[in-house]
């Protein structure tokens, strides 16, 4: 978002530069591999192959991608309205509750009914959890960053209570609900394909991936092609101008947060309804926080977010494969590598920009002067 505004050709801005950053990131990662005496080429090879090289690997990559699209979009929407919603974690957690409350009692209904209901459930609960911080920000000016942090903690407390004392079957060891009835399972992509007679490798990738893509498009349309989106962006860019233009900031703040919360809630569609088929502790696994990085690295633009989400999905899945094949590469190493990629592909995205800019502007004057 920030940085020198010397306009560059779009393809350079959105294509070349990110590519160069990625390469830089992998070069640094290679150093890490060398440090632990692993061949960088091979390791990176394994990661890439693990992420994209074979069916179920790709499946997992896209499965994670789904999570990141949801949380990334969630952050971006609020961010465009100038709000810093770091409560995706808690909102997603509650979204899970919404999904469960639909899927447990109504699992007997036909899928075509359960799925829409579950989507609504996820959205409602996610949004509801975002509402209080939103309201307090809008009416009392209570900083949304604190309130959302707090609500993450409150959510985890609430969910443990429910899962242990209320929702888990009597005498069960696990703080988790029973498995949903088959109708309340979001169809897995490989099953769908199997239905069409096509065999593809199995993975938790499920229909919510499509829903995520749809959401990305819808959010894009909403932000740049509707009056609502326009108002949100004005509010974010210049609140005073928003008032001048007769908009209602408090209302907009709440709307933005509700949308954001609902999107976070959808995380549960993928994790709970699509993959685990039961509500369990801490299924959000930090996707909410990573979503912040995803959104910002995607320049808060839905399509950028989808790309960033794929990158992170690949990191997660490729990393898993790597640590699987190379015992020396522990889970913690993977985290380091993810961190390095975020640093170089994200925070240091402008590192090579000046040089490149010089290259291109040089050529562009000539064009102008001539």
């Amino acid at each position, binding site marked *: 978002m920030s940085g020198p505004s010397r306009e560059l050709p779009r393809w350079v801005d959105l294509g070349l530069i990110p590519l160069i950053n990625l390469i830089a990131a992998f070069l640094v990662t290679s150093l890490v591999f060398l440090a632990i005496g692993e061949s960088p080429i091979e390791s990176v090879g394994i990661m890439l192959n693990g992420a994209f090289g074979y069916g179920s690997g790709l499946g997992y990559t896209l499965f994670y991608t789904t999570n990141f699209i949801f949380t990334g979009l969630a952050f971006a929407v609020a961010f465009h309205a100038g709000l810093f919603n770091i409560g995706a974690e808690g909102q997603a957690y509650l979204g899970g509750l919404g999904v469960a409350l639909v899927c447990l009692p109504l699992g007997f209904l036909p899928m075509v009914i359960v799925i829409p209901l579950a989507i609504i459930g996820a959205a409602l609960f996610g949004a509801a959890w975002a509402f209080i911080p939103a309201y307090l920000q809008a009416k009392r000016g209570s900083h949304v960053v604190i309130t959302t942090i707090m609500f993450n903690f409150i959510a985890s407390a609430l969910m443990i209570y429910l899962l242990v004392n209320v929702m888990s079957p009597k005498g069960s060891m696990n703080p988790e609900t029973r498995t949903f009835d088959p109708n309340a399972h979001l169809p897995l992509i490989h099953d769908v394909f199997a239905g069409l007679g096509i065999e593809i490798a199995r993975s938790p990738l499920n229909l919510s991936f499509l829903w995520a893509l749809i959401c990305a498009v819808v959010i894009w349309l909403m932000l740049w092609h509707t009056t609502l989106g326009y108002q949100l962006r004005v509010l974010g860019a210049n609140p005073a101008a928003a008032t001048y233009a007769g908009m209602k900031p408090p209302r907009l703040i709440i709307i933005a947060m509700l949308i954001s919360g609902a999107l976070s809630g959808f995380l549960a569609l993928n994790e709970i309804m699509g993959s685990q088929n039961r509500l369990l502790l801490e299924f959000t696994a930090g996707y909410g926080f990573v979503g912040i990085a995803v959104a910002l690295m995607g320049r808060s633009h839905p399509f950028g977010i989808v790309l960033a989400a794929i990158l992170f999905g690949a990191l997660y899945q490729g990393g898993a494969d790597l640590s699987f094949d190379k015992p020396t590469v522990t889970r*913690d190493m993977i985290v380091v590598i993810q961190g390095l990629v975020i640093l170089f592909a994200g925070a240091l995205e402008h*590192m090579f920009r000046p040089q490149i800019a010089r290259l291109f502007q040089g050529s562009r004057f000539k064009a102008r002067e001539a």
Partner: protein
Amino acid sequence: MEWLDLIAQVSGSAIRFSVPLLFACLAGLYSERAGVFDIGLEGKMLVGAFTAGTIAALTGSAWLGLLAAILASVLFALIHGFASITHRGNQIVSGVAINFIAAGLTAQLGETWFKLGGQTPQLTNDARFMGYAWPFADALRGVPVLGQIYSQILSGQNILVYLAFLAVPITWWLLYRTRFGLRLRAVGENPAAVDTAGISVPSMRYAAVACCGILCGFAGAYLSIAQSAGFIEHMTAGKGFIALAALIFAKWRPVPAMWACLLFGVLDAISIRLQGVPIAGIGTVPVQLMQAVPYILTVVLLAGFIGHAVAPKAGGVPYVKEK
């Protein structure tokens, strides 16, 4: 008498809770007052805690441990600076990256170096900052109020606790009474003004993030070689984020920052104390509710009394001269 004791004890533990928050919160204050947002506090604390644990274990000296912690966490702070000041990267992304790298690296190195399952070796007491009792502490324990304050709150804390609370007036003085502070606040409000006044914006901001690193080092060291006797992976357990909340709560001012951190400490201490204790009328409330109390109350207080918190004007925005 009974409840006086209770209060004394609760405040004692409240203070211990608030110290790491206070260090981290002040750390964030330096950085954010200079216009550099930092959600990487968590990570820097973790790095500090790890290095402190390691060096203290190797050298057997708490002070060397502290020093190392500071150096390490400053290093990470400078990385944050390099990304967000020199290269105008997004400060949040950089912070997230720092947290990732710190979490992974500390756990990994701990395991490879000590083979103790991500732990650093158990420290002997002389390699730690131990609380030491003030004279007559025990004698005065019986004396109501003053005696109790003296013996149960003031006395018996470790040196870092005193340093943490000393850091508050020092920070206040630096910020409001020195050239450094003036420039630091200015660069967080209107970097262009600082630039035209012939001061280098980057170097000011680097100085600020360095201060942030130093204090995070203290916070980390407190966790691993004062409160505990060694580092355990992920031992910061989200304190960095609470510190951030405290910072906003305090509207980026040092003294209120102290009160905010103490508040969090008190709430935490109380919630611990009330766990499983039947409350008149209600009976025993679920543990989870008690555990959520601090967070709920924070929100209530925030909504009820704190109101609008305005961040430093130039916060989060990299300084670009040629717009």
